[in-house]
C-alpha cells in the first residue's frame, strides 16, 4: 500500500481530499528503483481543472509507455491545503508515488492560460525548487514548460530551464536520451541545458538575450552561444493516426470538469478567424482516421467506464468524416448506455438531426458563436458566419422544438464601433422575433430564451491581431454598457438575457499574453504579495497587480493599448509556429480593409504551414 504524503488529520480537514491521494483507476504505478527518469507533470491549477485536460493525458500516457520513465501528476494545492503546507513545511508531492517533486528529474509545467502564471511560482515554492532557473543545481528538477502559452514564453522565461515549443508527442524521447547521457558522463546542468537547446522545438531561455530600444520595444534578441538556433521551429505530429493516444485515461474519484472520455478527432482548424490563436498555432489541420477513432472510442469507454464521450476539436463540423463517425458512435453508445456530448457544431440540418438523437431537445440549447454583431465586424475578424446562416439554423431548430439559444460574442475587437456593439442586441432580437414568427402559439413551449454573452477581446501572439491595440478597462465597460442599453431597447427584450465578463482580469491577461521578459519581475512580485489562482475571480487581486507594475516601473499601456508598428520585433518572433509573419501581416491589413479570406478547404492562402508536408495543405480541393 502506498503511504500518503499528507496525514489523515490533514486530509480530513481539507476540502476534497481526493485531489491529493492519487490511486485512481488507470493511474500508473512503477517501481521507482527501476526507472531512470522521474517526470512530474504539472498542471498549475486545481485537480478538477488539471485532470480534465486532454493534452496532459496524452503526454502522461506516452511518457509512461517509455520503460525507463515514470511520469506522475502534480496539481496546484487548493488554498486550504496551500496554507497548511506552508505552515507545516510539507513539500509538494506527486500523486502516484506521493514523493516530493524536488527529487524528480523533471518538473514539466503546462501553460494553458496566462492567468495561471502565479501558480507556477506556487508550485516551485511549495516544491522547494528555486524560483529562478539560474539559481538551480543538479539537486533540483529540470523545469520544462509546454502548452499554448509557450508560444510567448518570455514573461515566464526566467522561471524555466527549458521550454518545449509545439506538440508534445515528438521530442521527449530525444530529450530524455540526452539527459541520461549527460548525467552518465558527468556533464554540468548548464551543459545539459545548452545541448537540449539544440534539439528541435526546445528553447533554453537562459542562453538568449534581449536588448531594447529607448521606447521599450525590442532592438535585438539573440542566442549568446552561437551554436543555438536563432529561430525555434514548433514541433508537430505529422500523422495523427499513427501516434500516442491514451487507451486507458485516469478515472478520477471525484467529479472533474471533463468527467468523460474525450476523443480528439482532428487538430488544427481550416477557418483562420483572425482573433483565434489556436487556429494559427495548430496549422495545418490534420484529421485522425476513422479506424483510429472507432478503435479508441471503444477502448477508452471500456477502460474507464465513463458514461459519456465527447469529441474534441476546434471546429468539428469541418471534420470530413463526421457523419460516418457519429453514426458509428450513436450505435456503440446506445449499446453501452453512454451519452454523447457534442462539441459545438455549426447549426444546420445535419447537426440538428444528430442533436435530436443524442440530447433532450427540451432541455438542451443551441449555441451560435457569431463573435460579432454586424456583418462588417464579422468580415474584419474573418468569421464566415452570416446573419442569414444563423437565422436559417435558428429557424430549423425552432421548428424542431428548441427554444433556448446561446450566443457568444466578443467586445473590443479592432475597428469596432458603437453600431457593431449594438448589433449584438439587434441580432439577438432578430432571433427572438424569428421564434415567434416560426412557432405558432399553441406549439410554443414558453418564451424563447436567448442568452447573449460577451467576452472582451484580447490580442494574442501569432494572430493577425497581434499588432492591434487592446481596449482599456473603461472602454470595455462602456461597450458592455452600450450592448446592455441596446438590449433594453429591443421589442423582445424580455426574451433576451445579456451577460458580460469582468474587465479587470482581461487587462492583465492582455499584458501577460503579449508581454516580454521584463514582466517576469512583476509576476514574481505579485506572487510574493500573495497573488495566486488569478484565473479564479474570487482570488484575483487587481489592485496588487497594479501596484506591482508601478513598483517595477512598467507601463501597462505599453503592453495593451499601444498599437504596434508593422516592423516591430515581438518577444515571440524567435519562434516559428509554421505560419509566417508575412501571412499574419497580410491578414491584419485585409482585416482593416474588411476583407474576408477563404478557408484552407476553399483555397490555400500560402500561410507557411505547408512546410510541414502534411494535412490539409496536401489534400485535393473540390
Amino acid at each position, binding site marked *: *500500500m*502506498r503511504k*500518503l504524503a499528507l496525514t*489523515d*488529520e490533514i*486530509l*480530513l480537514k481539507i476540502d476534497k*481530499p*481526493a485531489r491529493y*491521494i*492519487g*490511486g*485512481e*483507476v488507470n493511474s500508473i504505478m512503477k517501481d521507482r528503483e527501476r526507472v531512470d527518469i522521474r517526470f512530474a507533470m504539472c498542471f498549475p491549477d486545481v485537480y478538477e481543472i488539471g485532470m480534465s485536460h486532454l493534452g496532459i493525458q496524452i503526454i502522461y500516457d506516452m511518457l509512461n509507455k517509455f520503460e525507463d520513465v515514470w511520469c506522475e501528476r502534480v496539481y496546484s494545492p487548493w488554498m486550504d491545503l496551500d496554507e497548511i503546507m506552508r505552515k507545516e513545511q510539507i513539500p509538494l508531492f506527486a500523486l502516484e508515488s506521493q514523493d516530493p517533486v524536488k527529487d524528480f528529474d523533471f518538473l514539466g509545467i503546462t501553460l494553458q492560460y496566462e492567468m495561471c502564471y502565479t501558480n507556477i511560482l506556487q508550485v516551485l515554492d511549495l516544491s522547494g525548487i528555486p524560483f529562478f532557473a539560474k539559481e538551480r543545481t543538479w539537486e533540483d528538477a529540470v523545469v520544462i514548460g509546454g502548452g499554448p502559452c509557450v508560444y510567448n514564453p518570455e514573461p515566464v522565461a526566467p522561471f524555466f530551464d527549458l521550454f518545449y515549443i509545439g506538440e508534445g508527442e515528438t521530442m521527449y524521447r530525444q530529450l530524455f536520451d540526452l539527459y541520461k547521457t549527460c548525467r552518465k558522463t558527468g556533464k554540468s546542468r548548464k551543459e545539459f541545458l545548452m545541448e537540449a537547446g539544440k534539439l528541435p522545438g526546445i528553447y533554453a531561455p537562459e542562453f538568449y538575450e534581449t536588448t531594447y530600444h529607448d521606447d521599450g520595444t525590442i532592438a535585438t534578441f539573440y542566442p549568446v552561444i552561437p551554436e543555438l538556433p536563432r529561430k525555434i521551429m514548433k514541433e508537430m505530429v505529422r500523422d495523427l493516426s499513427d501516434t500516442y493516444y491514451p487507451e486507458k485515461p485516469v*478515472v478520477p*474519484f*471525484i*467529479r472533474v470538469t471533463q468527467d468523460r472520455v474525450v476523443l480528439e478527432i482532428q487538430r488544427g482548424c481550416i477557418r483562420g478567424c483572425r482573433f483565434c490563436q489556436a487556429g494559427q498555432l495548430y496549422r495545418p489541420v490534420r484529421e485522425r482516421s476513422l479506424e483510429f477513432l472507432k478503435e479508441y472510442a471503444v477502448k477508452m*469507454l*471500456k*477502460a*474507464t*467506464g*465513463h*458514461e459519456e464521450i465527447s469529441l474534441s476539436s476546434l471546429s468539428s463540423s469541418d471534420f470530413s468524416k463526421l457523419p460516418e463517425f457519429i453514426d458509428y458512435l450513436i450505435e456503440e453508445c446506445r449499446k*453501452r*448506455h453512454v*451519452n454523447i456530448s457534442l462539441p459545438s457544431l455549426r447549426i444546420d440540418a445535419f447537426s440538428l438531426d444528430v442533436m435530436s438523437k443524442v*440530447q*433532450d431537445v427540451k*432541455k438542451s440549447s443551441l449555441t451560435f458563436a457569431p463573435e460579432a454583431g454586424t456583418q462588417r465586424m464579422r468580415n474584419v475578424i474573418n468569421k464566415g458566419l452570416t446573419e442569414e446562416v444563423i437565422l436559417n439554423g435558428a429557424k430549423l431548430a425552432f421548428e424542431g422544438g428548441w427554444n433556448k439559444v446561446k450566443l457568444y460574442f466578443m467586445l473590443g475587437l479592432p475597428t469596432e464601433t458603437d453600431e457593431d456593439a449594438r448589433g449584438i442586441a439587434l441580432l439577438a432580437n432578430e432571433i427572438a422575433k424569428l421564434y415567434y414568427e416560426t412557432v405558432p402559439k399553441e406549439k410554443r413551449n414558453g418564451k424563447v430564451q436567448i442568452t447573449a454573452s460577451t467576452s472582451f477581446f484580447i490580442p494574442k501572439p501569432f494572430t493577425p491581431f497581434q499588432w492591434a491595440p487592446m481596449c482599456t478597462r473603461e472602454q470595455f465597460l462602456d461597450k458592455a454598457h452600450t450592448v446592455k442599453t441596446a438590449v433594453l431597447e429591443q421589442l423582445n427584450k424580455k426574451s433576451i438575457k445579456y451577460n458580460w465578463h469582468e474587465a479587470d482580469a482581461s487587462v492583465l491577461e492582455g499584458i501577460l499574453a503579449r508581454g516580454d521578459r521584463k514582466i517576469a519581475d512583476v509576476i514574481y512580485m505579485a506572487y510574493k504579495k500573495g497573488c495566486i489562482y488569478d484565473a479564479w475571480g474570487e482570488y484575483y487581486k487587481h489592485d496588487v497587480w497594479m501596484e506591482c507594475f508601478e513598483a517595477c516601473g512598467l507601463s501597462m499601456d505599453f503592453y495593451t493599448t499601444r498599437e504596434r508598428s508593422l516592423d516591430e520585433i515581438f518577444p515571440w518572433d524567435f519562434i516559428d509556429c509554421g505560419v509566417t509573419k508575412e501571412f499574419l501581416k497580410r491578414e491584419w491589413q485585409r482585416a482593416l480593409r474588411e476583407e474576408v479570406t477563404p478557408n484552407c478547404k476553399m483555397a490555400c492562402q500560402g500561410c507557411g504551414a505547408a512546410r510541414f508536408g502534411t494535412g490539409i495543405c496536401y489534400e485535393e480541393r473540390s
Partner: protein
Amino acid sequence: MKYRIKFSKYGSIIFIGHLDMMRYFQKAIRRAEIPIAYSTGFSPHQIMSFAAPLGVGLYSNGEYLDIELTQEVSTADMKEALNRTMAEGVEILSVKALPKNAENAMASVAAAGYFIQIRKGHEADLVFGEGFDDFMAQSSIPYEKETKKSRKLLDLKEGIYDYEVKEDGIYLLVNASSSGNIKPGMIMEAYYAYLGRKPSEFDFVVTREETYTKNEDGQFISLDEVGKDI
C-alpha cells in the same frame, strides 16, 4: 435479477465520500461489463442502491450495494470481474444473488458493528476502554443531538445492542436503521464526557466491521446472508 455486492474500504480510498463511491461503482460496473439494468430516458442511470452511507475517513469491512441485472450471471464470475477493475483500497468480498422478495439494501439495514481505536499520536493519558463497562452500566446514556435546525435528546443506550472492550479498541454493535441510526462518534463523545473529557475530532479511527439486517426470528444476520451463490 437482483444481486448484493459486499465490499471493503481500506487505505486511501477512505477519503472518498459516499456520492463519489456511488459514481466509482457505476464506472466499475461498466468496466467489468456487468449486464446491469438501466432506467429509461435521455440520461439512463443504473439500477443500483447502497445500504448505508459511510462517512469520509471511516474504514469498512462490510459495505453493501444492490444492483439489478438484465440477465443471470455467476456470482463468482461477477466478483472476479469486479475485483479485476477495483482501485487500490476497495475489495469485493462477496457477491450474492437475492431472492425475488428481498428488501432493498437500504431498507433492510438494522444494525452495524464498529471497531474503534485511538488514532496514533492521539493517545491520551488513559487506557482506552477504561471505565467503559461502568459507562454502559448506566441506566440511560443521554446524548444531545444537534442538527442545523434542532436539538434532540436521545438515549444512546437503547441503540447499543452489544459491545466488547478489547485490548486494542472497543467493539460496538449499534442501531443503524434509518429511524434510529447511531454514529460511533456520538457514543465516544458520551463516553469521554462520562470520564470528564472531551474528545477531539480526530481522536478515533473507526472501522465498520459489518452491516446487519434482521431475519424472521429477529436475529442479526449480515446483509449478504440473505442471498446465495449462483
